[in-house]
């Protein structure tokens, strides 16, 4: 399989293209004519201050918000994403900062929420879901044991494993991770990093939103930096240093046109 970089160099059709996306909330332009793209097996970091618009941009892709202007293409085809169900039907899975788990349900119910396994009579098959949940957890987080308790009783890392399991189990092609390590300890953060490498090797495209420049330098192939709702630029991680990224985030300045890759 070709790497994402080779695919981009050949001008192959990206997995996802978000073109000229704009959205405003009550007159404030949260996202202002931003374009980003993503190839299979690529991790693109989205960086920026709080309120720079990265989460908003990504929520448009996951169907939580509806954009005012712009277009989304998946494998070159224009798609309409008006709600989370549309996003799921395009194999877009999202791991939210807030984890988006129903605290009163157990891990298996959360894993399958919205896509329950049912018996031939159309009833929810809890035993089968728990068995599947045990399988995927055996792969993701071998320490996970609390299958029959509501997820409210789980630690941050365990909850994160449930959220990640949900994305992985349903064969995501496009994965959106909104600060996946925000609530985690060092060991669990390492686990997520390994998982990202593994998913990348399987050809999944990942948008990774993170505050931590070092994490982005380590995990991503490219980084798109946003400030005040606008795109500062998209760069190849190989071509930039931590300081370059920081100055893009803080000053909103591109580190010279030579370092910036084209977004088209």
């Amino acid at each position, binding site marked *: 399989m070709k790497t994402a970089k080779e695919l981009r160099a050949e001008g192959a059709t990206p997995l996802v293209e978000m073109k000229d996306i704009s959205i405003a909330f009550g007159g404030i332009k949260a996202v202002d004519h931003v374009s980003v793209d993503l190839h299979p097996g690529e991790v693109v970091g989205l960086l920026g201050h709080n309120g720079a618009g990265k989460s908003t941009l990504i929520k448009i892709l996951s169907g939580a918000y509806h954009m005012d202007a712009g277009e989304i293409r998946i494998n070159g085809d224009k798609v309409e994403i008006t709600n989370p169900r549309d996003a799921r039907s395009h194999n877009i899975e999202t791991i939210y900062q807030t*984890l*988006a*788990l129903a605290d009163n349900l157990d891990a298996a119910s*959360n894993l399958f*929420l919205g896509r329950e396994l*049912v018996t031939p009579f159309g009833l929810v098959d809890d*035993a089968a879901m728990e068995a599947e949940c045990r*399988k995927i957890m055996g792969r*993701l987080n071998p320490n996970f044991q609390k299958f029959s308790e509501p997820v409210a009783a789980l630690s941050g890392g365990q909850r994160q494993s449930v959220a990640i399991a949900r994305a992985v189990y349903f064969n995501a092609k496009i994965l959106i991770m909104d600060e996946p390590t925000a609530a985690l300890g060092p060991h669990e953060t390492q*686990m997520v990093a390994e998982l990202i490498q593994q998913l990348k090797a399987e050809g999944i495209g990942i948008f990774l939103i993170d505050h931590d420049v070092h994490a982005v330098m380590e995990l991503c192939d490219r980084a798109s930096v946003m400030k005040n709702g606008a795109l500062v630029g998209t760069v190849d991680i190989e071509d930039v240093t931590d300081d370059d990224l920081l100055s893009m985030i803080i000053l909103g300045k591109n580190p010279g046109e030579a370092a910036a890759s084209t977004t088209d």
Partner: protein
Amino acid sequence: MAEATTQPIQTPAKRSLFQQLELDTRLLGMVGAFIILCIGFNLLTDGRFLTPRNIFNLTIQTVSVAIMASGMVFVIVTRHIDLSVGALLATCSAVMAMVQTQVLPDMLGFGLNHPATWAITIVVGLGVGTLIGAFHGWMVGYLSIPAFIVTLGGFLVWRNVAWYLTDGQTIGPLDKTFLIFGGINGTMGTTWSWIIGIAATVLALFGLWSGRRARQGHGFAVKPLWAELTIAGITAGAILGLVWTLNSYLIPARRLKRMMEAKGETMPEGLEVGYGLPISVLILIAVAVVMTVVARRTRLGRYIFATGGNPDAAELSGINTRMLTVKIFALMGFLCALSAVVASARLANHSNDIGTLDELRVIAAAVIGGTALSGGLGTIHGAILGALIMQALQSGMAMVGVDAPFQNIVVGSVLVLAVLIDIQYRKRLGAK
């Protein structure tokens, strides 16, 4: 990371015999409170409270509120409220009263007590209730008006629609067949009650067994066999005990004589016939079973609880929470109409004040039964037990001779106290 293909199943740590039963301790507490209440009233009334006759009356008085309480569980679990259930019951009752006493017999020329009248009436009533409920749900879900406001408005609107439809008059007598849904006028008789009781027991035991087998099929830990058998024994005992009690309530000799004379038979000396299961109680049991299956084993139920636990997560998981709200309120409306059938048939007529204050009784039953107003938690059997506790308290006090104002003061205080105990209990458990 990939050394294990599936998560090993831990053998549970050694636990006490009681814990191995895996019973819901909160439910046990409620059952305990109910039993203490019954025994207490029984002592105060010199054994008049726990007679088959009083238990029979208690069950048929509870049915109407309990049916609605099961629907209220879903409404409250999704963080909504329905203040209009009593008024909606009145509108459904008024519509059905007019259909069976005026529209069908006079306007459509069916005449009185036509064999199809009761069926048409009930279908119309259930349809009206469901539509009004769905309309409430649409306003809550799609127009984003808070459920409190929609149903507070509905409370006034539907109470007075009922008044307008009937000109405030008491409408009756109702269709003869319709009256069998009220309780005393429609019972299964002893033989059929035993057949139904035994069938229900067999079904319940089959349910327990198949649940155990499904877990074993995946190799999960199951309760020890003795614990399973104890639960099966309690279940069977409860079902058959209820049937036995209701069968022990004998039809008074004079009434039986009249019933037999109506059929052209003469009553043999010393004949004793029990009432058996009232049809209204059967309806409640059917509602309880269906609603429990919906809550635990269907996608609809799963989505209701997920939405109650975290509405954003439910929405982001692709659940159409707006449509879900419409469905929940439509179901609530359907159950209000079903309660209207039972309530008006029990009274044998439609009166203008039918269902007054029922909204408070229904909400109280659901809350006493462990439904959390913060959403996400609640059980159908809890709400029905809550309704039974409230009714037992009310009729027990009436039998003891407590004045009406004090009855209401006690019921109100018990509601607040029950919630306080619940909060303390959940705190100690470490849950929210």
